Every structure is written in C-alpha cells, then in structure tokens.
C-alpha cells in the first residue's frame, strides 16, 4: 500500500510534532534542573520518529501498543491528545496518567495505548496478553510492542517471542536498534549482526529495515501487521536507527563524534522532507507551514499544561485498588 500525498504530509507533520515535543520537553526539564529541581528521567526519541509514525500508520485505533520509557513518539503517533502527553510529562493532574506515571509511564486507554515501561523489556510479556485477548474474543486486533536493542538480551524477550510463536499470536515485535543500550554498544548485547536473525529461534519471520526511512518502516510494519491480522502469527522487525541525544538527560554523551554526525545526516525528518520536495509532493513553504503549525500545537499543549493543576494527594489511596 502506498500513501497519498496528503497522508505523507500528515505523517511528516506528526514526525515534526514529535521532534518539536522532544526539543521542548528537554528545554523545560533543563530549565527546572537549572532551578535546582530534578524533574525526573527523560529519554528523548529524537531521531527515531520515523519508526513511531511508520508503525502507527499501519495500525488501527483499536490495535494495542506497548511502549517504553522512550515513548513520547509512540504516544503522539498513536494519537494521545498532545495536551495529555505534555501534562503528564510535566506532572500535571490533567496528564494522560493523571500525573502518576510521568514520561516513562504514558497510558491512554481509549486508544489501547498500554503504557510506557520503566523496565527494559518490561512490555514484552504483557504484549502476549492483549494478543491473547484478541484471539480469545475473535477480534482481529493486532498488538505492537516496542523495545530496544538492549532489551533483546532480557529473558523476557525470549519468553515472549517463544510463546507468541508457539501460539501464533498476533504480535508485531518492533525492535528499535539505535546501536546503544545506555552507553553499551549493541555488540556488547548481541553476538549477531542483526537482532532480527533471532526470529529463526522461534520459527517466525525476522526482518531488518531502515528505521530512518518512513516508507521502509511502513512497509515492514505493514507486512507484519497484515500477517498478524490474518492469524499467521508474530513477526520480529528490527529497525536500524540512532538517537540524536545521549541516553537520557543526566547521562553525558559518549558516542564517537563521527558516528553521530553520520547519523545526523540520515535524520528521518530531513530525509522525508527531501523526498517530498524532490518528488514534488510539497514545496518548502508548505513544509515550513507544517512546522509552524506543529509549534503552534505544541504551544497550545504547553499552555494547557501550565494552566493545569498539580495532582493532589487527597485521593491517592483510592487509585491503588479498583473498587
């Protein structure tokens, strides 16, 4: 399936919105830190926007998504209202998780966004459950679960893929291989060149694709989603990508300069822009307008956040147990 010009521009807009969101969040956090306040952990997905947007482009609103602590992009691409994401990340009562979760724990039930996760690989076993629920109920909902190159070293990776493969459950395993787990190069976590080759251990398809190329992402995701939806079982997709930023705000950069520059040149937003321009699907003015609108959206969301109250401890006990 190819995208229409409008669809492409909309996806471009979402990527730009994620980028602007990441930049703004870092800025607000940095301000607070300068003011002596530690506002929590912040993991930027800058540079990985094509994966979030490309995968979500192939999912339905009722498909399930499990995200990570690096999940702002997933949340925005899935369609959580930007106000809610912004308010959550900055700890407001109007946040997606009412201020209980923060950046690492964005949840949004109306769109089956099943949460970020502070545990590396923590979402992998949970994804089995929504896949099972779909099978049990006879719906054709698909579950996509995002995780990193480091997460593939966790036992949870193995147990999850094994069970999904055995039961042919509709899971799409989306490994965002950004070459590093915190400061550890992927070669310190996986003895193979391609993590996707681990799919063979479960008798399921393993696919490697360029995670900085929106169309390549959408193609790979599309095939896996179609397979899952048709009841043919899980797929492991590995997207090669790179984060522009260090692991998180408090960890200094340590990656080679040359590597970082090389990957900057493969920036997924710039690449999509270049493609849109060269194919005549958009002109620079339109792209500028898209960015302007993204910034405007973001400014609205920040304003919503600033107007929102802090969560109040009064009802905190009630949240723990459901009635």
């Amino acid at each position: 399936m190819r995208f229409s010009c409008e669809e492409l521009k909309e996806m471009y807009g979402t990527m730009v919105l994620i980028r602007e969101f990441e930049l703004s969040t870092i800025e607000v956090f940095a301000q607070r830190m300068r003011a002596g306040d530690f506002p929590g952990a912040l993991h930027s997905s800058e540079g990985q926007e094509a994966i979030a947007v490309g995968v979500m482009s192939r999912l339905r609103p009722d498909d399930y998504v499990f995200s990570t602590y690096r999940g702002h992009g997933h949340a925005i691409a899935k369609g959580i209202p930007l106000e809610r994401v912004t308010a959550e990340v900055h700890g407001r009562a109007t946040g997606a998780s009412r201020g209980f979760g923060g950046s690492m724990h964005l949840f949004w039930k109306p769109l089956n966004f099943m949460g970020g996760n502070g545990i590396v690989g923590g979402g992998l076993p949970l994804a089995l459950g929504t896949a099972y629920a779909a099978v049990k109920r006879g719906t054709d909902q698909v579950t996509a679960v995002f995780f990193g190159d480091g997460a593939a070293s966790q036992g949870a990776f193995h147990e999850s893929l094994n069970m999904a493969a055995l039961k042919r459950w509709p899971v799409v395993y989306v490994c965002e291989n950004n070459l590093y787990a915190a400061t550890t190069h992927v070669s310190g976590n996986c003895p193979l060149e391609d993590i996707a080759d681990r799919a063979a251990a479960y008798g399921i398809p393993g696919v490697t694709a360029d995670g900085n190329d929106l169309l390549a992402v959408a193609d790979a995701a599309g095939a896996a989603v179609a397979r899952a939806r048709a009841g043919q079982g899980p797929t492991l997709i590995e997207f090669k990508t790179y984060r522009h930023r260090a692991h998180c705000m408090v960890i200094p950069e340590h990656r080679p300069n040359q590597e970082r520059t090389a990957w900057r040149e493969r920036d997924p937003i710039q690449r999509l822009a270049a493609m849109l321009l060269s194919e005549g699907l958009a002109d620079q003015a339109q792209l500028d307008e898209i960015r302007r609108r993204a910034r405007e959206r973001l400014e609205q969301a920040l304003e919503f956040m600033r107007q929102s109250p802090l969560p109040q401890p009064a009802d905190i006990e009630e949240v723990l147990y459901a009635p």
Partner: protein
Amino acid sequence: MLPETVAPRKLTPIKAMNEALAEEMRRDEDVVLFGEDIGAYGGVWALSKGLQKEFGPLRVFDTPLSEGAIVGTCTGAAMAGLRPVIEIMYVDFTTCAMDPLMNQAAKIRFMSGGAFCLPMTILAPCGAGTSEAAQHSQSLEAWFLSAPGFKVVMPSTVYDCKGLLKTAIRDNNPVLYLWHKALYDLEEEVPPGEWTIPLGQAAVRREGRDVTVVAYSLMAHRALEAAERLRGEISVEVIDPRTLRPFDLDTILASLGKTGRLLVVHESPTCCGAGAEIVRQVTDRGFDLLKQAPKVLGGRDLPIPFAKSLENAVVPQVVDIVAALRALISGGRVDG
C-alpha cells in the same frame, strides 16, 4: 430440591477450588485459566481437572514452561478486560515472574492514574512439610504484602478455599491466593451449591478468654489443635484472618479486649513477616488492650531444609504452639 444436592458433602481443598473455578468460568466468559500442564492433564495438583474439557483449550490454556510469560500474558489480558486466573505450580516459582508481578501487575493501575483495572488471580500452593526442600516449600506472602497493589488470600478450610477463590476471581485487582500443600488431603463437610466470602473478614475459629491466637493457613489448624490440647489449662481464642490484605484488625482488637494477650503463628520466616505486621498494627491501635508483650511464633529465619528431622524444626509444630502459649501465660503471670 433433591436430597442429593441439599445434603452436605465432603470436599478436599482441591475439589473446592476446582468447583470455584468451574462456577466462575460458567458465570463469566472472561474468566480464563493459565498454567503449566493444566489442560488435558488437569494440572499437577488436579486443580483444573475437567475444566479444559468443559471450557476448551482457549479458556483453559496450557502454557510453555515460562512463568514470566504466563504472568505477563495474564497481566496484559487483564488490562484488556479479561479476568485471568494463573496457576503457578509452586509459589516458589514466582521468582521467575517477579517483574511482571511486582513492577507490572501490582503497579499498572496506579501508574496509569487508575485508568486500567487488573482483575487477575495468582493461585499457588505454598508451605513446607512435604520434604521438598528449600525451593519447593516457601510461604512468600510477605513479599506480596510489602509490595502494595496485591491482595493476599490464604484460606485454611475447605469452605474458605471455595468461597474465597470465587471472591478473589471476582475482585478487580491482582490477588495472590495461596493454599497450603499440607492441606491437600483435608476433607471437610461443606454445603451444596455456591457461596462467596468477602475479603477482609476474619473468622473466630474458637472462643477463649485467656489469649488470642492469630493463625492462618495450615497454622490455623495447628493452633486449634494446640488450643484443644490446652483445654482446661488455658482458654485459647483462635482467629483465622483468612486474608492478609485486606486485613481484619477489628476482629482481633475485639478479641484482645477480652484476652489482653496475643500470639501470632505463621509458617513463613519471622523477620518482616505477617506476624510482625500484625504486632505493629495491634500495638498501633490496641496497645492499651495488651496485658503483656505480644508474641510471634513464626517460621525460623532459615530456608526449609530437606530432611524431615530438620524441616520440623524450622516450621512451628503443634508442640511449639503449646509451648509458646504456656510461656506466654506463665510469662504473663510473672510479669503482670
């Protein structure tokens, strides 16, 4: 009604739990059962006997040997609105699923600001006495009590096994339900039909005037036997809390109002166990009721050893409870 169905009948805990599972699965299509060897085979404890036949392999679901994936599946399924029950073959194996249990199932409702509900039950046998050594004999309720998000149910009677399991399954939160392996062969008379028992309601198993014994699971039986052995010597009130979270402190305080003396008996290690917590709660709210020091007779702070001669030395026996009660009473006389 036919006499056959109204007549009281004898059941074992396994049969009672099996009935509870079957009834709840009939009642609610969303109740599903997961575990190793639970399908055609019916589970190594025979807990799920006949269930796959009645409800099919999708609702009585045989899993691979992956406790982490099992708990993960059920956590995700609960988030999606199902109501899973998990059999973990021994509670000792929850170590292999601690992340999905503790960082996921117990916390997701809270982390999501209450958006998600996690109606799920972890069913597992616990306890020593079967010479299965350190990795097959533990009572791990303390871990789950110190990790908010779980409820904890530990029945001692056949009646409670059924009634509490049904309530646990209907509860909209993660519940750890531990039954004691040494109660496997217990047979007790129960009424016909269905019943449920609310969580958080203790049972006074025996009335007494001199001392209140709080004991759950297997230890409730041992406490009753100890009380019986002391008949005429010490008048022992035995309270079985039945569920440890929620916990029925009021019933215990009421009893202490009468006796003024407390002994808590449990099998799991004493350090940071339910006994310590009960003493904390009792001294917090009922200090003035206490005529003398509250005591905990817990398991010794040791793993469970293999040889019976050692195993019996680690877990409270009836004679130990008798001795503790005598010491308590005589200690009381001396002190007070």
